[in-house]
């Protein structure tokens, strides 16, 4: 078994109204910032998955992203493996 760390980035789907992004764009003037547009606000979930291999871990992350962490009607997600995060851990019994 190994440990894999992922980040799941959830963002509003293209075409969906993003009120938060709009509000951020609207407030740029107050900060005196120009040249910023197309702001989309989402959320990022970081987690660690114990699995036999990377493919299995990725499948778990994908499932979590699709079924729990994002709303497929209005959100899109991307699973991002986090660098240097995988490590081997001992099995529950008969450790190697």
């Amino acid at each position, binding site marked *: 078994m190994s440990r894999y760390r992922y980040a799941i980035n959830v963002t509003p789907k293209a075409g969906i*109204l993003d*009120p938060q992004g*709009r509000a951020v764009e609207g407030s740029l003037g107050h900060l005196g910032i120009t040249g910023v547009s197309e702001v989309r606000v989402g959320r990022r979930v970081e987690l660690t998955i114990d699995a036999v291999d990377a493919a299995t871990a990725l499948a778990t992350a994908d499932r979590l992203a699709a079924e729990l962490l994002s*709303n497929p*009607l209005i959100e899109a997600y991307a699973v991002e493996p986090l660098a240097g995060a995988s490590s081997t851990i001992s099995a529950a019994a008969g450790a190697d």
Partner: protein
Amino acid sequence: MTLAEAGAVVEPLHRRLGVTDDELEAIKDRLGGRDPNDLELAMFSVMWSEHCSYKSSKPLLRTLPTAGEGVVAGPGENAGVISIGGGLAVAFKIESHNHPSAVEPYQGAATGVGGILRDIFTMGARPIAVLDALRFGDPADARTRHLVDGVVRGVGGYGNCVGVPTVGGELVFDPSYQGNPLVNVMAIGLMEERRLTLAAAPGPGNLVVLFGSATGRDGIGGASVLASATFTHDDPSKRPSVQVGDPFAEKLLIEASLELIERGLVEGLQDLGAGGITCATSETADRAGTGILVDLDAIPRREPGLEPFEVMISESQERMCAAVTPEKWDTVREVCERWGLPVAIIGRITDDGDIAIVTGGLDAAGGPAAGAVEIARIPAAALTSDAIVHDRVAEAPTHSRAAPAPGLTDAATDRLPERGMDPGAVLAALLGSANLSSRRSVFTQYDSTVGTDTVAGPGHGAAVLRVKGTTQGLVATTDGNQSVGALDPWLGAALSVAEATRNVSITGARPLGVTNCLNYGDPTRPAAF
């Protein structure tokens, strides 16, 4: 599309848009015998949908009593308005958002609240209260709990942010709603009678102004069959059928709209809901007996690449359409910009009674610019007041029976508790049952005190609000009786009205008016109709 699919017979476009063959004939009739083009067909399909046209229910609804003392605005306007004396009037209405809530409970409920609020403030009334009447299936079912959770958070999320208190409502569980939850939202507004603003577009030569959020692809769903070749492979990310609400934008919209009305800056105001710009323009023109020339390019869009039909039927939320005289345009624009709302002149009122759409812009005189192309022309009435009306067949379902008339003894086969059951156990079971237990966990998710007018909020039979500056109060309730209604629709409806009247009267209030939200199945099924 595979070769096999291409070889199959393709359903005619009108059927894929939900327009029946006889409806297509009726459409051609209203267009002087010619075929509608694709854009026009899309507009008809939306305007002649049950939701927009009431084509199956109009003949029946017309039989309801609508006149009475103090009625300032009755059916046909965005909301009913009744005078309460002292120059003040109350606007109120209840509306459903069932299917969207079944698909995406949070946004479905949120946009349901947004829509009904717009119907209130578009008349010139400041919304002062919301009540939500909710019906779901078996609460032991995980999906039901998911729906309840999403809907309640959606009602709260929108109403709380907009600053309108949710002061009452109902939450009822019944197996008959398992696949079809009901989310009905009532809104009440207060206004000075003299500020009553109707949803008409009078005065040929006047400007048609759109303000509020930009137009995107929200709610297009069924008409997506019209999308051009790039999208036929149905990339789900390209077509959000769900409408997403922005209560913050709605709050700005309320303030801007009420300011425009207060300052006498608009000749007419209509909110955009089902049917989007098509509906708003055709309804306002039809009411005023005018037409509207729509400048498609001028409509502010959320993203590039929207096709004409998408712009015209989009159900993007938080938008309003006003009729404005040219000399007031600069002030109207200043008001909208101050509230941070996109605003644009999207057309001109004409005297030809048609909704005409051009691409290529309008000239200074308000006609199509040189080189502009007219892409649709439909008489406004054909889309609205002259929409098709169906005489549906009603047939009582064979499995039902009439409810026993009051006073008669029940038949022995009625399922009543046996004698000998432990009354304490029965009472405990009743108190713990889903329909009698406390709703505190629901209504504490609502802000019921914003506005400082709430005298009696959720948890009472009726909500009581005070009217600042007067010694008057307003009382409101929602009631429904689905169990009797399923067996005997007439009696169920009568009992609902009676219960609502009782809930209002026991507070000491005199009932002023009733608004109804009737939720039924497919009207083409005789048993449902």
